[in-house]
């Protein structure tokens, strides 16, 4: 049936979709991402709806600092590029390159995460905005925090994959897994585009 691919000539051109299993993973994951859009949309809507509800606490304009957000954006965007490049290496059956690029992706991701933790720490301890301070605080931390949780999950995913398959090279089983993880990572990146625009830039330049 359809899971019989020609493997005699080497790694097939689209290893992530060479098997039925891979095709299924690929499609299933896209469906999941489709669902994630509306999940994030709900959090975005919540944030936008409650943005003004500062209840006397600090407001967005008072808190946010553009340079830090810019740095974070650059880290994440770049990591997205490296993970794209990793997928090109995968297609060419260049396992070493793929791992190196993925490691870079992960490092950039950790950089991003560190910034975010620093940012939250600052807001809580010096900005006076706790999770429970106001509706603005709650919705801000839950939206950005949800994204941060996705980043964290993505990082652990990459790391597990790399450890698990550190010796095997690219196979028809793990190619879909790497591919799907990289899709996930891009999706996180896409969400961040909206976060920096809607949460940070719009709050600062909003008036």
């Amino acid at each position, binding site marked *: 049936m359809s899971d019989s691919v020609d493997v005699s000539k080497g790694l097939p051109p689209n290893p992530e979709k060479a098997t039925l299993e891979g095709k299924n993973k690929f499609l299933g994951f896209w469906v999941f991402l489709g669902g*994630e859009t509306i999940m994030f949309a*709900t959090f975005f809507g*919540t944030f936008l709806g409650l943005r003004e*509800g500062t*209840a006397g606490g600090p407001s967005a304009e008072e808190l946010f600092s553009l340079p830090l957000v810019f740095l974070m954006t650059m880290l994440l965007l770049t990591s997205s590029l490296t993970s794209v490049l990793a997928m090109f290496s995968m297609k060419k059956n260049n396992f070493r390159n793929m791992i190196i690029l993925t490691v870079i992706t992960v490092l950039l991701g950790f950089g991003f995460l560190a910034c975010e933790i620093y940012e939250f720490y600052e807001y809580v301890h010096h900005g006076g905005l706790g999770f*429970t301070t106001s*509706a603005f605080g*709650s919705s801000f931390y839950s939206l950005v925090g949800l994204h941060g949780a996705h980043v964290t999950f993505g990082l652990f995913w990459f790391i597990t994959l790399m450890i698990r398959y550190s010796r095997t090279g690219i196979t028809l089983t793990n190619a879909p897994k790497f591919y799907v993880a990289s899709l996930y990572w891009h999706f996180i990146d896409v969400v961040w585009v909206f976060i920096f625009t809607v949460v940070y830039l719009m709050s600062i330049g909003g008036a």
Partner: protein
Amino acid sequence: MATETAANNNKSVLWDWLTTVDHKKLAVLYLIAGALFFIKAGAMAIFMRIQLMSAENTFLSGQTFNEFITMHGTIMLFLAVTPLIFAFMNFAVPLQIGARDVAFPFVNALGFWIFFFGGLLVSLSWFFGGAPDAGWTAYVPLSSGEYADLGLDFYVLGLQISGLGTLISAINFIVTIINMRAPGMTMMRMPLFCWTGLVTSILIVFAFTPLAAGLALLMLDRIFGGQFFMPDAGGNPVLWQHIFWIFGHPEVYILVLPAFGIISEVVPAFSRKRLFGYTAMVFATLIIAFLSFMVWVHHMFTVGIGPITNSVFAIATMAIGVPTGIKIFNWLFTMWGGKITFNTAMLCASSFVPTFVLGGVTGVMLAMVPVDYLYHDTYFVVAHFHYIVVGGIALGLLAGTYYWYPKMFGHKLNEKLGQLMFWLFYIGFHLTFFIQHILGLIGMPRRVFTYLEGQGMETMNLVSSIGAFMMGAGVVVLLINIVYSAFTSERITVRDPWDARTLEWSTTTPVPEYNFAQTPQVRSLDPWFYEKVHGEGLMKPAEPMDDIHMPNGSILPLTIGLGLFVWGFGMIMLEMANPIITPWIVIGTGVIITFGSMLLHSIHEDHGYHIPLDKIKKIEKEVG
């Protein structure tokens, strides 16, 4: 060739069921779980009806009554009907598209167990100070930490978990239907049940995610002191209502579409006629699905959002009547000119049509905003949706049960008892719910645990309660029938006891583990009927006989579900006054079980096993 043959041959039956990844066995598990939850929620309805039987009755207190309505609604929608439709989807969809299994058998089992443990968590609330009591809609502030107790935490976390299970099962169905169809089974040759299954799954993907988000917000609000909904700190209670109904309205179509699908299978089968206007039916389904995301504000007309919004959403809501009408008339014209056999399955399926129309037209009446100012939150609404969920979905599920029962269990259900059940249920249903329209109009709000004497509501409520008892009797007859038939019905050995039309009837009964020894070649809509009439009476194979690849069973789905259950329970313990163990230990345990199992699964690469050719030949010979 890695031919580790079925490893669980010598394991116990119980172990076999706990670790199964076979879609047919999971279907049975879903069926049992769903039926148990249905009986539980139905029994609650009976208690509610006893309380409302007479004015100022004191059978239940206001608090208990609120817990009953909440659990009744929640269980019925999330834990009874959802698994029941999943039972039939699990059983029929792979067979109808000619697949050996679903796309991700492991995920299929995972979905079941997560759903099951989520449901268990909701049900546990009774033992920890009371069930949730804010209605299945859980409107804040009534459901917030300030006004509701632990019960709501069980609601939030239990639904979160079971919703996760539902979500991943839905993804699985989507991929199955898109990727696993047999050769020749184009999208426009798929049976309508597969179409509605696909569309329902898509709706689940896009509706359960906002629910997950909403429940997360509510959980953050209740357990971690979030400020989303309380106006004092800048929050807004209407936010929850939007999120809930963005999910909630599609949810009702999630439930009804598979019922539509079942009707679209049963009616043609017993009218011996192909489905009238197949293409129109498919597109109507898609339009209904699309519109269902654009109408949610019709549950919030009285919130005071403003006249423009209300008007727009009213029109959108009414528009749904058009594609639904297309379906109704197509069913009618399927029967028209056919040769109709009236057995229990067909009785349920055909009576679905007029009953559903009664419920549908009251829906359109509700959509008239200013008049909804009268109907909203009265028994008129209760009557509207029971006409659909009982007169529509429950009848559809009963039809499905009687229809697929022989294929699932190898014997038919008793006809006499079946018809008795049908008439009890059907008459009881009309008695219970028709009169509730009028109750609503004369001023009976819903969710009231009692009503004062002398308001003219006593007789009608009594009638309604009597009807409910009849329905209960009907369900009891069904249960008796199941037991009775298991002992007395003759085994079915033919492939196709109903002389039906779709692929699931082309395999042997009982269905072998691998469904089809050879993947069938599909040449038409209603392929089995086509081969019976135009072909040689058996499906043409699309491939030579060969070893069949099967997935291995695994206990990990169950442990992941268990892990989530423990995790969720730990979260609830954070809210308990004096938990015996530190909640964080419980949470940690749950997290470790969950992620540990997931890790195990991803580390242990399992390629399944092959059933050798000679074994297949032997099995095929045995069943003839």
